[in-house]
């Protein structure tokens, strides 16, 4: 055996394939010394709640009730249908296509329904905005449906109204407004693309010609459309195609996490990251660390305000070096980024027609216009970037129209304000002072799915139906329409947005189904409508409804004028706002799955934080978790500091949505309200932030150092040209290991289940984590338990940094049980609670487990999770409906872990054996694999050489995790490929 030049046990390593990687600055600072223990301190201690007295009480009660064990519980009842619905077979899952709204645009979904209750959300493979992928938010939206703290019923003042009474009183209100033509009636709505809502708005405006709809989104993309207005004279939406782009320059554009059609873009990006000869190259210029920045080949960290000058520098280099004099007026000297700007310009030019400049919605309109000009000059327009009229009903959903509404409210010019936008009192820019003005409207009608700040200030509180309870329709960015059908009748007394708006034209009693269907009947018509309608519902979209891309020609003089009109950034500390990967704009604050979902970059749970770079922290004399007072423009908030490696210097990033004034059991006390610093003039970033330490420490809980694998080579990444030369080094991470124990031969079995995860495709978004949670009935444990490393996620995504803390690159690695063929957990279990199946699955038998936790201690991958408490104890009836009936709900005191979605394997086995065929090599799809928008996970039968997972296991980039331990894991990893520009080496 050759000497193992392996990077194990924290030895110092040379850069390259297995360069040292670390998960936090603290870990990097203490490397190479291994952490003192595998679990954080206190992880193994029993809960302190059970004192001596309660113990004695429990013992007494147990003794007193012992005799009851002899009594049998009453027999269960079996309830049959009276008239069985034709599409429902008890105990068999059904799937229905529907659509969800993301920023007003539609994303196609396929929802699994068990006995009439939706239990799992997936992307619709046929829908252009999903392609079958989903993200953490879409997965977790299901929990909102069953949330016991949802708002219910209708309240006017202090009177509870029934549905009929509500509609009658709304009708009376509408009649009263009709006299003045609705001059004192206003609607504050979210941007939406729904054709039905568009129809209703038109009908309302016909009845009330002087009423007005104001759309507001705190995550508005209005600046992007304003940029198109500058460049093309029309507010068009840009659509990016990453699959055709060899070189991508993302200017503060989180293409894989926030901006645009992230699911499609992630799929396209991943498709270009696997073949060493055909890799795309991704440049990202950004301030805060984003998902896209994490996978970038080159990440230029700069303050958000420096992105425009950088783009101008690129334009200048293109004009100067590549004969594009038309761009010269747009250019500017490069400042500190000249080398990078030149290299990017050269690269873009080399790939002209196959390159892409994308700008995120946080950047000013001028930069969007500049990008349009650059794409046009590079010949990308119509190829990698296309422009379409926006599918939204309102092109401007930014602070402008809202400011006008606030002014009207302040003048007392509004009698009745109907709010269907999510919690505008929380999301409105602080300087507009909507909170003050809101009370000036006499009738404040708020449609909300839970009690928030806005509904607390309302005079009419109307509980809102969950999208899975209501009919609706949506268009995706390319115009493709979907009819969103409900999966379940409203669980509570609620109203949908369609019904509320219909009440203003006295149509609500017809119900949302009739309203949506009649709209489409009028729009499409024809004799075959009913059949076509059924087809749309089945497919989840209306075929042929996409709009064509518009030919465009930018007006360079207007672009130049706009670019030059942008003032240079003021010096000083920049404060920058971003939507949160977990709570979005705050609407998921009460969602425990998302609260406990570690942020893809910071791994923070249950809070937001003031993110800043290590250098800025030093400059301000701050440490991780210091509490600081942030002040800008006379407004202050107090926040915890989180030092994020790779963050831009002299900038602080705050994510929105936390710190809501009115919050429920889950969201209470969670984070701080970054929106309190946000103004209408500078909704995304501004300079002049002052930071002072309060002297206290913030209680921030991040999972980034949990379940450490002690500094061994785990997540491997390599520059693509070096891959061929690294074969020998990679061979040390794969292949047979010498062993005294002859390996079990699984090759004769019909099935040898295995998984492969391509780190090149993985973007680290964490959709798999939440998909696994939804599929496998995984509980949340709360912030305090997370702080003791007791989170229950079977599948975690580890994020490793590499390089200096100032400017590191990162690798994300999803990790669940790898189903070792020689599993260390099995040797140490005293009760055979974890054993191997004949096909080589590492089975966990909950009923045998006595909770010694030896298995977890002996697991080198740290993927076993222990039920320290009875997390499912307090399940409400609605939460019981959420559980997947195919998976056991675990009780306190048992160990659990990834099962390779064995319930799906067994389902496929029985279905196929009933039909007399074998399970196909790719037939079984694990929950994580199904959710992954980047298709980074392959699962299937390793004994079928044609299966995807077999091919991935044979890949030149394949390696095994902790291979030196000889565990022979069934999950293989594929090395991440990087494609850096040699000119920037």
């Amino acid at each position: 055996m050759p000497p193992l030049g392996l990077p194990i046990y924290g030895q110092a390593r040379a850069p390259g394939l297995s360069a040292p990687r670390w998960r936090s600055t603290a870990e990097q600072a203490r490397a190479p010394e291994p952490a003192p223990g595998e679990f954080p301190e206190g992880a193994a201690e029993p809960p302190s709640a059970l004192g001596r007295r309660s113990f004695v009480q429990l013992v007494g009660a147990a003794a007193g009730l012992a005799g009851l064990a002899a009594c049998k519980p009453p027999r269960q009842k079996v309830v049959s249908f009276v008239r069985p619905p034709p599409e429902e077979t008890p105990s068999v899952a059904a799937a229905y296509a529907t659509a969800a709204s993301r920023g007003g645009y539609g994303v196609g979904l396929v929802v699994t329904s068990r006995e009439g209750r939706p239990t799992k959300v997936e992307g619709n493979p046929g829908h252009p905005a999903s392609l079958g992928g989903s993200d953490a938010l879409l997965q977790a939206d299901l929990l909102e449906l069953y949330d016991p703290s949802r708002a219910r019923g209708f309240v006017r003042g202090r009177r509870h109204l029934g549905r009929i009474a509500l509609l009658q009183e709304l009708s009376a209100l509408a009649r009263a407004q009709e006299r003045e033509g609705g001059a004192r009636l206003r609607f504050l709505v979210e941007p939406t693309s729904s054709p039905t809502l568009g129809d209703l708005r038109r009908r309302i405006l016909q009845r009330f010609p002087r009423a007005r709809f104001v759309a507001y989104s705190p995550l508005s993309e209005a600046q992007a459309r304003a940029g198109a207005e500058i460049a093309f004279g029309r507010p068009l939406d840009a659509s990016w195609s990453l699959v055709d782009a060899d070189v991508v320059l993302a200017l503060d554009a989180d293409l894989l996490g926030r901006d645009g059609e992230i699911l499609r873009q992630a799929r396209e990006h991943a498709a270009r990251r696997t073949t060493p000869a055909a890799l795309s190259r991704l440049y990202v210029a950004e301030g805060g660390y984003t998902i896209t920045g994490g996978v970038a080949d080159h990440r230029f960290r700069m303050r958000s305000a420096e992105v425009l000058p950088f783009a101008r520098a690129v334009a200048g280099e293109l004009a100067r070096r590549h004969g594009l004099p038309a761009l010269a007026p747009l250019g500017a000297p490069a400042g500190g980024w000249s080398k990078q700007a030149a290299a990017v310009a050269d690269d873009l030019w080399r790939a002209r027609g196959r390159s892409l400049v994308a700008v995120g919605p946080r950047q000013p309109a001028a930069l969007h216009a500049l990008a349009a000009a650059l794409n046009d000059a590079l010949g990308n327009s119509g190829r990698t970037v296309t422009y379409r009229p926006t599918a939204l009903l309102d092109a401007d959903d930014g602070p402008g129209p809202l400011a006008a509404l606030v002014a009207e409210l302040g003048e007392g010019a509004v009698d009745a304000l109907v709010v269907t936008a999510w919690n505008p009192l929380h999301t409105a820019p602080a300087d507009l002072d909507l909170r003050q003005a809101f009370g000036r409207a006499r009738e404040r009608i708020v449609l909300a799915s839970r009690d928030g700040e806005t509904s607390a200030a309302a005079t009419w509180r109307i509980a809102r139906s969950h999208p899975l309870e209501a009919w609706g329709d949506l268009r995706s960015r390319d115009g493709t329409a979907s009819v969103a059908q409900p999966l379940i009748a409203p669980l509570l007394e609620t109203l949908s947005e369609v019904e509320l708006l219909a009440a203003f034209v006295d149509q609500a009693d017809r119900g949302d189904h009739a309203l949506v269907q009649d709209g489409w009947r009028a729009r499409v018509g024809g004799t075959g409508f009913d059949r076509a309608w059924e087809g749309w519902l089945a497919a989840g979209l209306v075929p042929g409804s996409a709009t064509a891309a518009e030919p465009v020609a930018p007006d360079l003089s207007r672009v130049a004028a706009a670019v030059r009109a942008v003032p240079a950034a003021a010096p000083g500390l920049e404060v920058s706002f971003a939507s949160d990967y977990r709570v979005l704009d705050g609407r998921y604050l009460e969602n425990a799955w998302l609260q406990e979902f570690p942020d893809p970059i910071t791994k923070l749970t249950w809070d937001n934080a003031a993110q800043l770079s290590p250098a800025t922290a030093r400059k301000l004399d701050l440490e991780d978790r210091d509490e600081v007072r942030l002040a800008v423009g006379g407004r202050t908030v107090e926040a915890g500091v989180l030092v994020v490696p790779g963050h831009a210097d002299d900038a602080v990033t705050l994510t929105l949505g936390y710190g809501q004034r009115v919050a429920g059991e889950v969201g209470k006390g969670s984070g701080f309200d970054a929106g309190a610093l946000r103004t209408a003039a500078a909704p995304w970033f501004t300079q002049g932030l002052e930071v002072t330490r309060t002297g206290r420490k913030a209680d921030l809980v991040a999972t980034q150092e949990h379940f450490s694998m002690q500094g061994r080579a785990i997540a491997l990444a390599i520059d693509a040209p070096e891959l061929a030369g690294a074969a020998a080094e990679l061979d040390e991470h794969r292949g047979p290991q010498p062993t005294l124990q002859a390996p079990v031969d699984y090759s004769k079995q019909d099935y040898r289940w295995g998984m492969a995860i391509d780190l090149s495709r993985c973007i680290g978004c964490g959709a798999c984590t939440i998909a696994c949670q939804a599929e496998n009935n995984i509980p949340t444990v709360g912030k305090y338990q997370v702080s003791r490393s007791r989170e229950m996620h079977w599948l975690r995504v580890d994020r490793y940094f590499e390089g200096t803390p100032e400017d590191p690159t990162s690798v994300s690695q999803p990790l669940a049980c790898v189903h070792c063929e020689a599993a260390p957990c099995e040797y140490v279990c005293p009760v055979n609670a974890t054993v191997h199946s004949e096909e080589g699955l590492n089975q966990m038998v909950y009923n045998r487990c006595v909770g010694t936790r030896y298995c977890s201690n002996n697991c080198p991958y740290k993927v076993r999770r222990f039920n320290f408490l009875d997390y499912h104890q307090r399940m409400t009836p609605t939460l019981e409906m959420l559980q997947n009936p195919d998976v056991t709900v675990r009780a306190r005191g048992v160990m659990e872990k990834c099962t390779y979605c064995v319930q799906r394997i067994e389902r496929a086995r029985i279905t196929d054996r009933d039909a007399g065929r074998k399970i196909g090599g790719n037939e079984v799809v694990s929950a994580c694999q199904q959710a992954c928008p980047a298709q980074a996970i392959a699962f299937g039968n390793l004994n079928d050489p044609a299966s995807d997972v077999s091919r991935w296991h044979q890949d030149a980039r394949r390696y095994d995790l902790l291979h030196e331990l000889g565990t022979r894991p069934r999950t293989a990893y594929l090395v991440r490929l990087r494609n850096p520009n040699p000119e920037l080496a």
Partner: protein
Amino acid sequence: MSALFSPRSNAVFRLVLVLLVGGAGGSVAAAMVYWRIPYGTGQAAPIVQPVQFDHRHHVRDDLIDCRYCHTTVESAPSAGIPPTELCLNCHSQVWNKSPLLDQVRASWFSGEPIRWVRVHKLPDFVYFDHSIHVSKGVGCVECHGRVDEMPAIEQVQPLTMGWCLDCHRDPYAHLRPPSEVTSMTWKPDGDPVEVGRALAEKNDVHPRTDCITCHR
């Protein structure tokens, strides 16, 4: 000074020791025995259903196949409890004034389902699937007994894990051609084990004993 403990205390102490040790062991043993005797497993417990439905009459006298009512037994994990509508397929014509069927008619007209009492109950962590057993030729009678002789359904088999495993380890005596699955009286033509082996070969019967076969 008299002795602190009387001579009897030795005997008492021994008795206490025996009771403590024996009691602990005995409790465990008693529980183990309890779960194995018919009383513990619920076999042959008399069960009163809300509607006095007589399987004996419907199966033996009327010759109705099991699958006429338990419609999903071949295709789904659950065999299916017949909906009220299915009862009335016949009973809207025959016995449509019988007081025994009052509840069925009430269910039909009110829309309130009939609440039957569950007879065969597996624990929640057991995932049993009717379809695979039926398609591989395990007769209804193997687990449910001679339903054609039961005026009221009772549990005849213990439904313990050991009982499941007995058959999963050695299924041959319990196999029959899939076409005869619902027959209550089918008898193998020859040695049951030999016939079973031939059927297992023919129908690709491979019962598994991995934990995940039933527990997920």
